């Protein structure tokens, strides 16, 4: 018995080793995609920049000084100053917490609601499915930006309503996507096998259905990070997002807009940051899709 136990102990440690190895392989695949990797580094850098702003910015991002207003980039102000003479670099750093933070929270929130609804609808089918999908269809009947505008207009401006608006406009997409995936999964034999061994519906959803939808969700989340950043900054630009003087990037463009012809850098610089961030998430999404999509990976096993 003693001997048998050691034998199976070995098996168990092998299983653990194998699992860590697999996880590393997945990272390797991602790492091989140089664009995705570069995007990941850019995203990390942007996040780090936003975090640093909590303890340090070169200047006070709210301190205005009309004497030095609208100065182009220089040694003392590397990204120049804005219409009120505030240091743009400091404002970009400080504003990252809004642009990135709002997108991140609302994308996560939207994904949580959407995934839960999608799994409920797809797994249960029948009336639950009909009701949920009807709601989703109705929500999808609103153009994204419009629904967000309507919500912000109704609730009033601010960070919270922005998060609410973005998550409400995005959850139906997750719900529909996940439901589609779940409908495929529930017809697979391993779900039937799980029923046969007597697992409860809840356990089947959590252990067998959910993990198999995750790759789709993660890829979608990455794309939606890109989209949310555009959405949040567009609302900011229209004056419906994070209200000034808070330096959300879109709000910064909206504020500097009238001085655009004389001092284009006030508009151009925040725009570049928005563009790069959004682009990075889109590229990361592409990379994740390649690394996670079993179809693309399956191709390697042909013949």
């Amino acid at each position, binding site marked *: 018995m003693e001997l048998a136990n050691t034998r199976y102990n070995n098996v168990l440690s092998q299983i653990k080793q194998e699992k860590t190895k697999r996880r590393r392989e997945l990272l390797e695949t991602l790492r091989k995609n140089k664009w995705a990797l570069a995007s990941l580094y850019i995203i990390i850098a942007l996040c780090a920049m936003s975090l640093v702003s909590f303890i340090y910015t070169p200047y006070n991002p709210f301190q205005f000084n009309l004497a030095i207003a609208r100065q182009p980039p220089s040694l003392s102000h590397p990204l120049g100053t804005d219409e009120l003479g505030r240091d743009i670099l400091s404002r970009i750093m400080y504003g990252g917490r809004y642009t990135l933070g709002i997108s991140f929270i609302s994308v996560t929130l939207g994904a949580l609601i959407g995934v839960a609804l999608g799994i409920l609808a797809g797994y249960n089918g029948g009336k639950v499915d*009909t009701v949920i999908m*009807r*709601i989703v*269809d*109705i*929500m999808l*009947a*609103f*153009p*994204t*930006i*419009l629904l967000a*505008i*309507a*919500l912000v*207009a*109704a*609730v*009033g401006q601010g960070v919270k309503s922005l998060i609410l608006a973005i998550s409400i406009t995005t959850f139906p997409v997750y719900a529909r996507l996940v439901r589609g995936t779940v409908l495929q999964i529930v017809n697979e034999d391993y779900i039937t096998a799980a029923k046969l061994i007597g697992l409860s519906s809840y356990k089947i959803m959590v252990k067998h259905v959910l993990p198999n939808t995750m790759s789709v969700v993660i890829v979608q989340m990455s794309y939606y990070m*890109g989209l949310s950043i*555009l959405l949040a*900054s*567009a609302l900011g*630009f*229209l*004056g*419906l997002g994070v209200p000034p003087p808070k330096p959300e990037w*879109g709000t910064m*463009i909206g504020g500097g*807009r009238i001085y*655009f*012809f004389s001092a*284009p850098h006030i*508009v*151009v610089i*925040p*725009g570049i940051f*928005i*563009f790069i961030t*959004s*682009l990075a998430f*889109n*590229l990361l999404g*592409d990379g994740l899709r390649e690394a996670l999509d079993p179809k693309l990976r399956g191709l390697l096993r042909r013949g």
Partner: protein
Amino acid sequence: MSLGKFIAKRAFQAFVTLIGALLVVFLIMRILPGDPARLIAGPEASWEDIENIRKMLGLDKPLYIQFIEYVKCVFKGDFGKSIKYGTPVINEILARLPYTVLLAVAAEAIAVALALPLGVYSALKPNSTLSRFISAISLFGASLPIFWLALIFIYIFSAKLKWLPSFGAGSWKHLILPSFTLALLLMGNLTRITRSSVMEAASMNHVTTAVAKGLDNGKVLRRHVLRVSMIPIVTIMGLQIGSLLGGAVITETVFAWPGIGSLLIDSIFYRDYPLAQGIILFIVLAFVIVNLAVDFIYGLIDPRVRSRTWS
């Protein structure tokens, strides 16, 4: 199932969606933490002012009665009166509609004219340099903040080169910047969808049958690849037109294009609550109708759709 029946069924579903959308708009306006009366009255208004506005809008009645009243009004074509202009909301919308339609049609036409050939090309020659360039462009299109892009265009083409007017409407020249900006945004998605659906269709087995018949490449492409790949493309086009008819809010605002989108933003800033609500409803209506039209086109393209059983 006949095409007529199929459309009837879809129309019914669209109707249900529309009622649901009405409810959503209604709830957004009444239930969410913001108080429309307070918003309309502005921050300095007294409690009495607010109460008066509330009565004027019928907000003192129970919620379900409000909803029924509201649905009734909508079906009579009465979206209420604009606070700012004092005219019926529907008149304001109709006055702006031609501009929005013009911009939507122009932008979508440009986008389709560019995106379809590019998408088809990069689907058929996925490894060519041009294809890589095309996917880079469509990725950029998906990542660019459009309001920013619009400003850059104004800077280059109006301020510096002085080729085109920067805002307003009037001549065909006014249309160029807004429609191209919008088209660039639409193109990204359209190219990508075209590429992937053409690629999928080209790898289908029936294409092999067509080639094996000895059919020439042009016919194989037209009949057996493109026609089959149309459904997702038409879907995206429909979604795009549907949402453009609601006014390209951002583009219209930046270029001061007098369409429905900029009207919406105005109405929100003036707290012209009946106008805003009316516009939103109108937009949803347009969206639903366009989607219905898309379903109709599906039925024409694909015989299976006509006979599919819908639950």
